[in-house]
């Protein structure tokens, strides 16, 4: 079994920034990441794309390109990086268990940083399990990591910055979506947050530029779409929706859904650190201090896994957590920590200023949060429908997600609730007329990712 001062889980902006800073402060730092190359989802395959596919690199835009500088710092820092390593448990003594090409292994960490980032929020509309329906993020990942673009009629539907970004990136790649369908957004409610948003670095201009680029393309951009549903025999063939008082139908080969991001919580939840309901982001997140300390000693959480704040804020959070970890290991004094933290705290504040506007503007519609069509599949793994969950919540007084899981197997499949957890919470809350905070969330236990019986049997414990 190996050991490290700091084990960083996840090699996105937060994890890379933390690892680079920690290694720079003299901490023996080990990064464990599931993907084959560092960068996380946002900077997916960035080094290879930059080196091999310059046209693709430039069409992905400057926010993507900005990741090269971070990757460079990380590579030069001396932090160790193990790709394709899937962490499935962190125990009470901060031993980190993972599975990689050579089988199961563990590493003893003095401090742990969880930087597991975000997930796309589930978009449970009728037909979303059909082949030919994917998330917008998935299409973007295919573009970044494999230079693949949709072949045929593609419709993007939902709301949020990523919806627009993927539409624009596809346009630049020569793919003309058949339509971009935007579900209702909260313009008036968001308005009062506009001044702060406008002051945040670059956000407003980038947003307006994307809208301009999309409009200029002439692709139908329909705003205020409701009642979204995908249909087809064995695969997506049509998307239906209500727009301007009429039911519409559009033939498709591929539908890309997006409804914003939510923290990827499973590893943090498995540690039983304290979580709270974030009403403005409509999700649970771990309770953290400004350094990223959660309620479990020696464990830090940085980046979108601690609450959605974007890549630039994630880098700052990663650096701050590294400083705090170094301080608690006695490598730097509190004074030094605080002094070094100042620019990161300031920079993070500048980026956080954008959140209130974005969170309010793109708050997912109620019909997506708690689907009203009873046959809509909520748990994709176990194929549990919204109707069944509502019925048990009301008729059988099922008080929360854990009893619901026991009654229906929702959340018991291999994805372990990542694609249904928030929806089940919302459905129970709505049906029982309680807050999502009161409804609660699944109790998550290890393994947070599958591990074979053989690997567990041969564990070095």
């Amino acid at each position, binding site marked *: 079994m190996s050991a490290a001062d700091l084990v960083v889980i996840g090699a996105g902006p937060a994890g890379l920034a933390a690892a680079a800073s920690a290694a720079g402060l003299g901490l023996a730092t080990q990064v464990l990441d599931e993907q084959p190359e560092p960068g996380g989802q946002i900077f997916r395959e960035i080094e290879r794309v930059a080196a091999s596919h310059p046209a693709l690199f430039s069409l992905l835009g400057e926010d993507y390109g900005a990741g090269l500088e971070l990757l460079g710092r990380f590579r030069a820092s001396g932090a160790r990086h193990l790709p394709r390593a899937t962490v499935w448990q962190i125990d009470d003594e901060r031993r980190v268990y993972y599975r990689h090409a050579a089988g199961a292994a563990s590493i003893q960490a003095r401090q742990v940083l969880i930087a597991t980032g975000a997930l796309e929020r589930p978009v449970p509309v009728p037909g979303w399990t059909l082949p030919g329906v994917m998330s917008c993020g*998935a299409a973007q990942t295919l573009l970044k990591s494999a*230079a*693949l673009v949709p072949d045929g009629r593609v419709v993007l539907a939902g709301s949020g910055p990523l919806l627009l970004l993927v539409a624009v990136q596809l346009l630049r790649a020569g793919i003309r979506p058949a339509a971009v369908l935007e579900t209702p957004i909260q313009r008036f409610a968001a308005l009062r947050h506009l001044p702060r948003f406008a002051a945040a670095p670059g956000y407003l201009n980038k947003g307006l530029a994307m809208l301009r680029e999309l409009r200029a393309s002439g692709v139908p951009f329909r705003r205020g779409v409701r009642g979204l549903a995908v249909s087809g025999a064995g695969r997506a063939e049509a998307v239906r929706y209500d727009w301007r008082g009429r039911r519409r139908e559009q033939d498709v080969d591929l539908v890309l859904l997006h409804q914003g991001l939510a923290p990827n919580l499973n590893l943090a939840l498995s540690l039983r650190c304290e979580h709270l309901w974030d009403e403005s982001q409509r999700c649970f997140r771990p309770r953290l201090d400004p350094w990223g300390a959660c309620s479990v000693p020696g464990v830090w959480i940085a980046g979108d896994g601690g609450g959605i704040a974007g890549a630039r804020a994630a880098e700052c959070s990663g650096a701050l957590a590294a400083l705090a970890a170094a301080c608690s290991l006695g490598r730097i004094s509190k004074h030094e920590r605080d002094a070094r933290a100042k620019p990161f705290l300031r920079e993070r504040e500048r980026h956080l200023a954008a959140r209130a506007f974005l969170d309010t503007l793109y708050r997912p519609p109620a019909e997506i949060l708690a689907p009203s069509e009873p046959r809509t599949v909520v748990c994709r793994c176990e194929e549990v429908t919204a109707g069944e969950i509502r019925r048990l919540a009301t008729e059988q007084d099922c008080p929360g997600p854990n009893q619901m899981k026991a009654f229906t197997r929702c959340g018991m499949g291999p994805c372990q609730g990542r694609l249904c957890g928030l929806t089940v919470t919302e459905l129970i809350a709505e049906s029982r007329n309680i807050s999502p905070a009161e409804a609660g969330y699944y109790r998550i236990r290890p393994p947070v990712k599958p591990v074979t019986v053989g690997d567990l049997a041969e564990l070095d414990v």
Partner: protein
Amino acid sequence: MFRRLPETAAQPVTVVIDGRPVRVPFDLTAAAAVLIGDGITRTTPVSGSPRAPYCMMGVCFDCLMEIDGVPNTQACMVPVAEGMRINRQVGARKVRS
């Protein structure tokens, strides 16, 4: 469902998808290779309904396939390799004695 951008040529490898040899760029994952075709990775053990990759980042588990004989492998997490056998996962996995 997907195609490669023309200006991004890469060394091809041959993988065998459901018994059919297919030439794909070396830098794809198994799931991406399947998405160049009809994209269907499995049928579910619950209702037998067909599924295709949804998230492409390792969280949705809809891309479970039998890869080089190992059932229920997340195809979006496995880079292709010369001769790799990629089979659709039909319903619940079988055990091998």
